[in-house]
């Protein structure tokens, strides 16, 4: 197998080092070098975001760094996307939301970013979202997955209620997360899985989307 073109490493490294100009330049260079834009996205930009997720988990990066890496990812994406011959099938569609009664959305935004960078189509419903609106979006978007977030203990009940409605009425896999959520709670309320961070959310999304496609 050929060694990967060095420009892919430039793309990944620019995202990781929060170098916006470098990322946009490397995206142009990848096109000039004839690298398929799909490859530049998955093996370059998305790989960079994956490494950003690692640094976040290791507490080397914090929230601002991840949000800015996301902006850089999209800036370089805008250079590559028009040249993608056929929109590749998304790895799956995820609807994500912070449950009703909670306005803490930093964690959800990071999960959204990392799942999107991993090749999923993500429909973000925002914060303080009633169960009925989530159900409606899951049906409308034919979502494979739902990611529910809450940071407050009092809203765990609403999370439970949302999971119940979704499991009764749809076949989507429901993932839950946020600081007060643990495995025991996720299992108790009938969710399909939980993870303590965004990297874990990506792994779960891959696992459940893969199962549904089989």
């Amino acid at each position, binding site marked *: 197998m050929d060694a990967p073109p060095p420009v892919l490493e430039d793309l990944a490294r620019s995202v990781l080092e929060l170098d916006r100009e470098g990322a946009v330049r490397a995206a142009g260079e990848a096109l000039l070098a004839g690298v398929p834009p799909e490859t530049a996205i998955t093996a370059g930009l998305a790989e960079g975001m994956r490494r950003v997720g690692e640094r976040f988990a290791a507490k080397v990066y*914090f929230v601002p760094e991840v949000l800015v890496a996301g902006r850089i990812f999209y800036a370089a994406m805008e250079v590559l996307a028009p040249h993608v011959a056929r929109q590749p099938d998304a790895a799956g569609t995820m609807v994500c939301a912070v449950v009703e*009664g909670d306005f803490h959305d930093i964690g959800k935004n990071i999960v959204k970013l990392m799942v999107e960078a991993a090749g999923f189509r993500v429909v973000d419903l925002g914060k303080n979202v009633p169960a009925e609106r989530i159900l409606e979006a899951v049906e409308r978007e034919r979502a494979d997955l739902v990611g529910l977030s809450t940071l407050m203990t*009092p809203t765990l009940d609403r999370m439970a209620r949302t999971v119940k409605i979704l499991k009764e009425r749809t076949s989507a896999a429901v993932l839950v997360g946020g600081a007060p959520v643990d495995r025991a709670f996720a299992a108790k309320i009938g969710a399909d899985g939980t993870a303590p961070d965004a990297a874990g959310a990506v792994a779960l999304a891959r696992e459940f989307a893969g199962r549904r496609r089989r």
Partner: protein
Amino acid sequence: MTPNPAGAVLAGRRPERLPVAPVFGADHAAARAGVPLRDAMTDGDRLAGVLLAAHEDYGGDLLVVFSDVTVEAEAMGATVRFSPDLPPHVAEPAGEIRKLDPERDGRLPVILRAAALARAALPPDLPVLVSLKGPFSLAVLALGMDRLLALAIEDPPKARDAVLAAAESQEAYVAAIVRRGGIPLIGDPFASGSVLGPGHFEALALPGLAGLVFAAHRTGSPAAIHICGDLRPVQRLVHRAGADLLHLEQADFAAATAAGSVVLGGVPTDVFLRDEAAVRAAVRAAANTAPPGHRFILGTACDLPTRADPELARAMVDEARRLPWSP
């Protein structure tokens, strides 16, 4: 009457018993009194009324005058939404940071009125802490999180200017709080180590915190800082702000007292949504892990949940008072 132990600890003296304080805000105090949140948060007399009623019921050794996190951002022009059973949130940021007149703008006079009433109603040696936002969090709430956090990396001087503008505005608020006999309690949730790393904390949060602590000290008042979440990534930098009291959640308490501060905290707030046994066990655990010396006020790590059962807050104080204590 025995001198107030929290006041003693803050003054650097040995208390006659372990000071204890369930910390709560207007949301909890109004909910337990059956007062609509919005009414308590927009009227200084009602705010003081619900806070003092809860204080009297629980019997803690200090009082915090806290309405909600949006007060200053709203006064700067942010759109704030109230709902019947949740603390208010910023729906639309102000988009700018302007210098506030604490005697006039937004709900700042409401908070100051409640502070003055609370101070007058309570024994003089019982500390009355009055919450205001740290400059970094205020800048985030006024400008919007995406905008400020992105500026932090993409245009650091601009981000620093925004935070300094917020700090300048808060200096006048600190002075107004001290004039009411309150101790400024600077709350900086966005500067939590759950959100910011040490690099940004040092560049963006620390200068404003240190400046406000100094502003309080210049008037002869102590100053307190409250940051919840995981403090550990930034804790050594928090010490540099020079606050007399730190109200903390996940942190190294012994390091904080060694750095010269009194620590308030130790009891996680989620136990108040469980049962009395959980609360009592958490109080004993907090006492067992208390930092050495007499620089500790056993408190809730953050505010009591809105709907926490008052019975459990009473149990917290009762359990703390039963602990063995040798002055």
